[in-house]
């Protein structure tokens, strides 16, 4: 049995046409699965659906099972204790994911105290330890800092610490390095890989950057217009893509393999979406 089993998951917002249309995928314990697609393809909605954090007016149908427990329709009183403990999430923008009025160390310690009985001192000690695990020098000082006093990379490490401190089975990362500088991105990815190994957590890694994905994941899901159009091992999908859209994505991502100044391949060279309303076509 896989750790996460998503079966025929559809999500619709209000009366609009569904954003996700019957998607299936599984994540094994400890696996790193990348979810790739362009903005609006439904990547983040998938993440929020698994976390049970879709807004009220969204309806999700199908099945999401984590360790055999059905999550769809699970009352929030029973779901909340799982979040941060069995599954957790890392957000794209670390500045807005941290409360500006609360010391960051306390925000991490809260996650500990929400899920297990521990004194303030114990939670603080665990937090300091975790801050060190994510390569933050001088954890004591970081603990007492506010979000705006830290750099972007430091903030994202704090968010990683929040997501990992209870050693969850599954960590969902939604574009965790998109807002960061390249040199910082490199460090944060290294910290993420290291800590996923240390905790033994599986990861659903959402990104639009194929290079970043290849540095974290073993498996890939390709999403297009709310459906998964291709899935498989990283190497086989990247070296022998089956769906034309995947081929297009790969071609546009290899900026390093095109002679400077020459025409870049575009997705439209490989895949044209069936006629849709104007303004939403793949062609930019």
């Amino acid at each position: 049995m896989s750790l996460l089993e998503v079966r025929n998951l559809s999500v619709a917002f209000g009366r609009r046409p569904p954003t996700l249309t019957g998607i299936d995928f599984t994540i094994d314990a400890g696996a790193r699965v990348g979810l790739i697609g362009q903005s609006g393809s439904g990547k983040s909605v998938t993440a929020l659906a698994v976390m049970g954090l879709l807004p009220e007016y969204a309806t999700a149908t199908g099945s999401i099972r984590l360790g055999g427990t059905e999550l769809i329709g699970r009352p929030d009183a029973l779901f909340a204790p799982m979040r941060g403990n069995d599954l957790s999430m890392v957000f794209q923008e670390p500045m807005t994911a941290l409360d500006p009025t609360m010391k960051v160390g306390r925000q991490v310690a809260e996650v500990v105290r929400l899920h297990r009985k521990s004194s303030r001192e114990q939670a603080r000690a665990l937090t300091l330890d975790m801050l060190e695990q994510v390569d933050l020098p001088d954890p004591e000082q970081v603990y007492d800092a506010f979000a705006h006093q830290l750099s972007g990379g430091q903030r994202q490490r704090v968010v990683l610490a929040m997501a990992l401190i209870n050693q969850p089975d599954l960590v969902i990362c939604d574009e965790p390095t998109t807002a960061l500088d390249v040199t910082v991105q490199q460090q944060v990815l290294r910290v993420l890989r290291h800590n996923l190994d240390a905790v033994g957590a599986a990861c659903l890694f959402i990104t639009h950057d194929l290079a970043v994905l290849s540095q974290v994941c073993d498996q890939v899901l390709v999403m297009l217009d709310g459906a998964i159009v291709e899935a498989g091992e990283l190497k086989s999908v990247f070296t022998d893509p089956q769906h034309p859209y995947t081929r297009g994505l790969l071609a546009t991502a290899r900026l390093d393999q095109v002679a400077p100044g020459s025409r870049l391949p575009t997705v439209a060279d490989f895949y044209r979406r069936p006629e849709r309303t104007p303004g939403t076509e793949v062609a930019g």
Partner: protein
Amino acid sequence: MSDPSTPDPSTPDDPAPVYAVRDLTRVYPGSRTVVAVDNVSLTVRRGQRLGIVGESGSGKSTLIRMLAALDRPTAGDIRLHGRSIIGVPERRLGFLRSAVQLVFQDPRSSLDPRMRVGDIITEPLRSRMMRHRSDVPDDHAARLTEVLEAVGLPADSARRFPHEFSGGQRQRIAIARALAPRPEVLIADEPVSALDVSVRAQVLNLLNDLVDRMGLTMIFVSHDLLVVRHVCDSVAVMRGGRIVEAGTTEQVYQRPQEPYTQALLAAIPTIRFER
């Protein structure tokens, strides 16, 4: 444009640079004084495609804001075709406004959501400063059709509103607006950073194409070194408000001299299958 780049101040003998920047400094005073741009000198020649690369806080955005006279330097001089733009009152900056146009990072916020695309694109032509200049097209409708075609948007786009377009199309609208007054210099500030990878390629192709066809001079700011390598012939690497390394794209990418440039290049994520 095989012309070697000269962001290096040691070659001031260039007869007619488009931009000549000398010892430019911008200090933001306050409780914590910030030196955003620190003693920067560079020249930009006609037809050059200069990439300015740096991480957040490197001062690259402040630098181009000063080049476009949207911010005033604390010290130093900027000359456009030999004419200083420092201390010139806004109403006399017509020569700069018609010659230099900008494309911003996020087309969602750089286009007024309540204006029709046609009005957005012709807005620079209607401005008080541009209206009577001989180098600015006076037949607005004709120019609108021209630039829409140049950026590959259907002619009926003019009657629609920005929200009816995708991100890539909106960036085309922003580019069309920049081209409308027939500028000589196009300053692009992270023009593809807010776009999807799939759309990025199309906008870069378009920019390359337009710069070629219209013989534009381009200053292209980006944090993405691969993008800069693709569209620029020369590059200046900024860090902490200073230019730490400059040269032709070829030189800087093949034989980076500064450890910082080397680190930046090493940090570019590449597709790999072994960890």
